[in-house]
């Protein structure tokens, strides 16, 4: 059969966010795979420079809709390091609890998405139903289901009461039971195993070479976890295992994520038990002393890195975010080498991509070229001209509207 190039995206049912992949197929076999990022660029890094540190906490929280706590904690940690703030112990424990709750919600979400990608919608419906338990807990603790807004520079904004702790523990018992059931499904249901096992293979060597992070790397035997290697929040005082696997495929990634769920329940139970009494926040200065800091955080998708440079004012000079998907996206092309088209959705989904966190803009200035700045009006005029050239003309409509109002 002759070769065909089919577009997966920017709009495609397999993708939850706009991103363009182009696949060269020979029959059902993938010959070439290329990814084009950038459809979701929002300029958050630049926007951070325009706002104060406290505003940036809420802005960085909106980098990702799922690991929102990961980004805000990572940013807050960097700022606290710059300001040499001694964050109260209780605040660190509360951050740890919310961060593990977020991991549970993210991994259960992933399980459902993975089920849907291989046409197993029942798994999607079940795991998302159970995910509601953890969403309710998060809403109870922070007031929001996503974008919790619990972090602030120097601590957290809400305390956990004993009554809330009891409810969390109760939910953890239910979820643990359900997770064990999902592990049983993943390891016993034959059609599911056929679709996951041996698919998207990333050898240990390749995982190291391409710098895979998080569950993607750990399923290829890369034993790395920031929570253990460079403890932040309260992780240094808690006892947990780093789950690794040697299957190297999507099946292994599923097992790692399910194993991490069980560890998360363990961590939350310990954290609630060991949580010290005391204040939950200390006062932070408005102006942060000059300097630069890097902060690492183990997000559900892998290592998240924030770099903050301060110039002594109340606004940061530079904020740089390295979201985990950026580290993992390179592995997809390797995993898809000589695979079938049917494996493509699950292989992309298996790194648990979050494209909007990853998208950046690079502008290349050639020698002798002058930089052009478009003001809002110029940009508008340019877009009207572009659409007119492509046969879409709203001039008459505009006039009509102007007359009407």
């Amino acid at each position, binding site marked *: 059969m002759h070769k065909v190039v089919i577009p997966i995206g920017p709009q495609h*049912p397999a993708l939850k966010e706009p991103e363009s992949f182009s696949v060269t197929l020979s029959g059902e076999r993938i010959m070439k795979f290329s990814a084009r990022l950038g459809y979701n660029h929002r300029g958050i890094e630049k926007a951070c420079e325009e706002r104060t540190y406290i505003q940036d906490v809420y802005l960085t929280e909106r980098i990702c809709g799922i690991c929102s706590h990961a980004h805000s904690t990572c940013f807050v940690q960097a700022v606290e390091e710059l300001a040499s703030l001694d964050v109260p112990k209780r605040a660190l424990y509360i951050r740890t609890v919310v961060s593990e709750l977020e991991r549970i919600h993210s991994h259960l979400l992933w399980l459902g998405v993975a089920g849907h990608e291989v046409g197993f919608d029942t*798994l999607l419906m*079940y795991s998302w139903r159970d995910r509601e338990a953890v969403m309710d807990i998060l809403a109870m603790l922070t007031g929001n289901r996503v974008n919790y807004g619990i972090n602030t520079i120097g601590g957290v904004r809400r305390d956990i009461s004993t009554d809330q702790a009891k409810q969390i523990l109760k939910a953890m018992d239910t979820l643990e039971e359900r997770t064990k059931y999902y592990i049983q499904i993943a390891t016993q249901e034959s059609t599911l195993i056929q679709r996951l096992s041996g698919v998207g293979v990333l050898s240990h060597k390749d995982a190291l070479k391409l710098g895979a992070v998080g569950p993607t790397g750990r399923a290829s035997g890369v034993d790395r976890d920031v929570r253990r290697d460079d403890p932040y929040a309260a992780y240094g005082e808690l006892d947990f295992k780093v789950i690794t696997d040697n299957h190297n495929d999507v099946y292994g990634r599923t097992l790692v994520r399910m194993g991490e769920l069980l560890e998360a329940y363990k961590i939350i139970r310990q954290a609630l038990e060991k949580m010290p009494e005391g204040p939950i926040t200390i006062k932070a200065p408005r102006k942060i002393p000059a300097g630069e800091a890097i902060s690492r955080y183990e997000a559900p998708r892998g290592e998240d890195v924030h770099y903050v440079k301060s110039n002594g004012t109340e606004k940061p000079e530079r904020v740089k975010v390295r979201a985990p998907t950026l580290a993992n996206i390179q592995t997809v092309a390797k995993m898809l080498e000589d695979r079938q088209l049917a494996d493509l959705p699950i292989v992309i989904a298996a790194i648990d991509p979050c494209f909007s966190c990853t998208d950046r803009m690079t502008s290349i200035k050639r020698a002798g070229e002058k930089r052009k700045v478009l003001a809002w009006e110029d940009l508008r005029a340019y877009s009207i001209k572009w659409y007119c050239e492509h046969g879409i003309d709203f001039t008459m409509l505009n006039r009509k509207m102007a007359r009407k109002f």
Partner: protein
Amino acid sequence: MIGIFYLLVFPGFLFLSAFGLAAEFLDRKLYARLQNRIGPPWFQPLADFIKLASKEEIIPDEANPTIFKLMPVLAITATVTSFFYIPSWSQKALFSFSGDLIVVLYLLTIPTLSFFLGGWYSTSLYSKIGAVRALTQLFAYEVPLLMSLLAPALLADTWSLSEMAVFYSVHPWYLLFNLLGFAISMIALLGKLEKVPFDIPEAETEIVAGTFTEYSGRLLGLFRLGIDIEAVVGASLLAAIYMPFGLGIGPVLGFPLFLLKVTAIIAMLSLSRTIFARLRIDQMVRFCWKYLAPLAFLQLLISLTMKGFLVR
């Protein structure tokens, strides 16, 4: 006059459409309840059909308009026609002749062919891949299906569905020899109806809607109605061959019994849709030729042996 009534109203197009939509509702409701959802109200399939019928039809510039428009009609016509040869609530079908089993099987292959042609001539890449997959799948499930349906016919020593119904009414216990064939043809029917785990030609997350990607409005509505009717007719065929009991009790009791049998088969199909993940096309073809076809051979062997020992 009576011929037109048969063809268009009962048990033809109108009855089968209503039954097909009811079966779709049952399938969707059951699927939803098994997945812990509430599911659609009873009129949802009809509402969907009316909505699609009132929508604009878009035919791609590149597509061949004649074939593009003809295929949904062909799919419906073939399935409705095949129903006339299937004995449903009495021992005798509306029409019958010796060898009508083969004709029914042939007519039931036409919808798949129409999916292929409709998809191929709509020229979209997703449709083309879906079309090729539909045809590849046909080659995988059709042989086991044919062999497992021929086995009961061999035992009855006739290739007419109506005569088979008479034979099994006389010897109801012989049905037990066909149980393996029943299981095989249920699996093959899943492939024919393109349901999970064999919904490969319309795998949403890979190729959008496969064959139907470019279809919209009335034509898509007709295709979907065609699939609903195919489900009912396929289930009736299986019911007529593998559960031909209670056919002689008259239309008043026989008709509800027929509905019950078809409903039971549709429910089994929904259940399998709930508990499996979608296979890949290579896995599907391997499964059909490695396990299904040899098992169908075994069924043929059982039928031949039993024929030698029991019938004569």
